[in-house]
Every structure is written in C-alpha cells, then in structure tokens.
C-alpha cells in the first residue's frame, strides 16, 4: 500500500468510522491508518466508545415498553391533567428563581417596558413547556379567541397569520399584565418549536424593536401607540426570531393598536 496523495483529515477519520466517507476514499484512509498509529489509536478508541454506548444503552430498547408509553393509551384523550398541573407548578417555582437573572437583560430598556418584557418572558417560559394545556382557547376557535381577548384587553386583537413562517396558532390565553390584562398567543412549528406573542396596553410611546436574550429564550419587543408587544422564541436562531417578529409587526400595525 502506498501513502495517499492527499493527507487524511480528522473529519475524514470520523466519516470513515461512521460510514459517511465516499467509497473511493476508504482505501486511502485504511492505508493512512497503517502508517499513522496515533490516528489508528484514535479511531480504535472511538469505536470502543460506540461499543460501550451500545453495551450500556441497548438494554433499554430491549425492555418491555412501560404501560404509560403504550400507544393505545396515549392516543386516548385526557390522560395527563395531573402531570400538566405538576409541571406548571414546578415551572412557576423555577421562574420565581429566574426573575433576578432576567432583570439583567432588559436594563437598557425604557423602564415602562421593562416589567412588561419580564412578564412576557416569564409567561413564555411557563407555557412553552406545557404539552397538554399550553392555552385556554385553542387556535381552532380563532374567531372566538380574538373576540374574547379583544374585549378583555380593550383593543383589537387579531392573531397574526404566521403560516409563511411555518407556524400554526396553538391558541391563546388571558394573563395579568403589569398595568392591564395581557393577551398571550402561542404558535408552533410541526417539529415543536414554540413562539409566543404577548401584548398589553403599556405606558410607553412608540419604540423601535429591541432584542433581549437569556440562556435559551430570545425576545423581540416593541411598543406601538400605547400597546406593547413581545415576541419570544428559542434564541438559537436570531434571524428566525426576527423574521417572525417582522411578520407579526406587519400584521399588527394595521390593527392600529
């Protein structure tokens, strides 16, 4: 065997053991490993690691499936009220502890919007983890939801259409805001990414859109003629958050606050 003309990279070593390497390069890598014992040792240790993972965790896949994961049972509605309630209670605890941290991120905001954004982020944090009861009124009752929320917050609430961003309206709920009731709308992608829109009357003039982030939540917030808006979502893709916020902004603008 001869030394391959092109040196083998570390990426290729990974691709080699994961069967991702183009077939024509496999011989080169095998030749390389013979003349490069350190790389051969690394490859050996990665394989041993994979074997150890299988040895440790394959048994889980062989266990009988616990009753609570039986598909027939899960397909029946209304099984997990209690679980949801417990999760919400736990989440409330967690949020209480996090407030101090959150305050840090919005210090730069106008003070009237600060409490507002904190409330919105807390609500986001509380409800995105909910599986069965994330909202009070489902998105399927959009007309009723809008009518109800509009009446309670005192201005027209029209749930933005975010289908173009791959988001479907899960529904909404009414929440206490810092100075007035707040409308809270939740959207979800087919893979479970959740975004929420929080809006309420706010003693703030029209402002620019601002960004605030914490460990894994991001929010864009703004106010428009006395109405505040906070759009929250996962913070790992700021462009996506911004794109969704723009879509919301473009549609709420026409409401006239």
């Amino acid at each position, binding site marked *: 065997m001869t030394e391959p003309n092109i040196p083998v990279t570390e990426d290729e070593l*990974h691709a080699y053991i994961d069967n991702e390497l183009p077939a024509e390069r496999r011989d080169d890598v095998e030749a390389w490993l013979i003349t490069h014992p350190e790389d051969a040792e690394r490859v050996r240790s990665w394989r041993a690691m994979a074997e150890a993972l299988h*040895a440790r*965790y394959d048994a889980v896949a062989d*266990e009988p499936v616990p009753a609570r994961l039986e598909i027939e049972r*899960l397909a029946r509605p209304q099984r997990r009220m209690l679980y949801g309630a417990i999760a919400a209670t*736990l989440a409330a605890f967690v949020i209480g502890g996090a407030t101090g941290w959150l305050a840090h991120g919005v210090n730069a905001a106008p003070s009237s919007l600060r409490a507002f954004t904190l409330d919105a982020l807390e609500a986001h944090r509380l409800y995105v983890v909910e599986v069965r009861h994330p909202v009070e009124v489902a998105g399927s009752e959009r007309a009723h939801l809008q009518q109800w929320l509009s009446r309670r917050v005192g201005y027209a609430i029209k749930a933005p259409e975010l289908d173009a961003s791959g988001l479907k309206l899960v529904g909404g709920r009414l929440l206490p805001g810092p100075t007035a009731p707040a409308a809270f709308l939740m959207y979800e992608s087919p893979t479970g990414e959740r975004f929420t829109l929080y809006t309420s009357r706010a003693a703030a003039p029209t402002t620019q859109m601002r960004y605030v982030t914490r460990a*894994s939540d991001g929010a864009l917030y703004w106010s428009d003629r006395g109405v505040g808006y906070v759009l929250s979502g996962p913070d790992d893709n700021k462009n996506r958050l911004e794109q969704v916020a723009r879509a919301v902004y473009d549609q709420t603008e026409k409401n006239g606050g």
Partner: protein
Amino acid sequence: MNTFRDSVEAMIPALRRYARALTRDADVADDLVQDTLLRALRSERLFIGGDLRSWLYTILTNLNRNRRRSLARKPSFAPLQDAAAGASGTEAEGRDIARALATLVDDQRAVLLLVTLEGLTYREIADIQGVPIGTVMSRLARARAHMKAALDGERPALRRVK
C-alpha cells in the same frame, strides 16, 4: 389499521434508548418519550410523508431543549444508580460511559448519540438540529475528544486489565 400509529409505535424502543442516554435518568427519559409520542399523535395530520424517524428525533430534541430551559435554574441531581447493568465489569464500564456523557454539552451529546447509538446520518442530524452539516461534524469531533479525555482520565489502569 393505522399505519402512522404503527410506525410511531415501532420507534418507541429506540426513542427510549436515545432519551435514556441523553438524560441518563430513567423517569425523565420516559417523560420525554411520552411527551414526544403525545405530540406526534396529536400532529399526525401535520406529518406529510418524509422520514418519520427523523421527525420523532426532532420532536424529542426540541422537547428536551424546552425541558432543559425550564430546569435551567434547578440544581441537577445525578441518579444514584443506573438500572440495567450486567456483570460487574460491564457495570463499571456502563457507569463510566454515562459519567463521560454527562460531561458533554447538550448539542454535542445529542450528536454523538444520534450518530453512534441511533445510526443517523450527518445530514439527518443537521436537519434535526437545524444547523449546517459542518456544525454537526465539529460537534461530533468535540464530543469524541471530550469523551476520550473523560474516559482516559477516569480509569486508565482498569482499561488495560480487561
């Protein structure tokens, strides 16, 4: 006959394995699988073909991220003992591998497990995590380097004995 439901059901053992390795806690792992299944069943109409397996792993990954977020302020408890272990040598090795996994950051752990345990392709994982394939590869490289360091550092002598 419901082929969608049957296909989801067939994935439960693999999802449980992945969730267990991801969280290293049997109860938390099954909660995660339960939520994944509920969401999948609820979203049946949103699933328009494509790879069901990748879709389920994507849901589980997103739910785990939500869960981590909600626990971000809670102290974490290491499980006292892992169930499911064989002979004592294997048991010790199993504990080591679990401990080494615990040293990884979430995204790296997920990549390593999806590649080595679940046998997904780099491309599928890039789609699941919503990142470019190069990011998947660098996460994988870092995960393996970390794991190796953790395993070597932990019991260099015992390794030789086996």
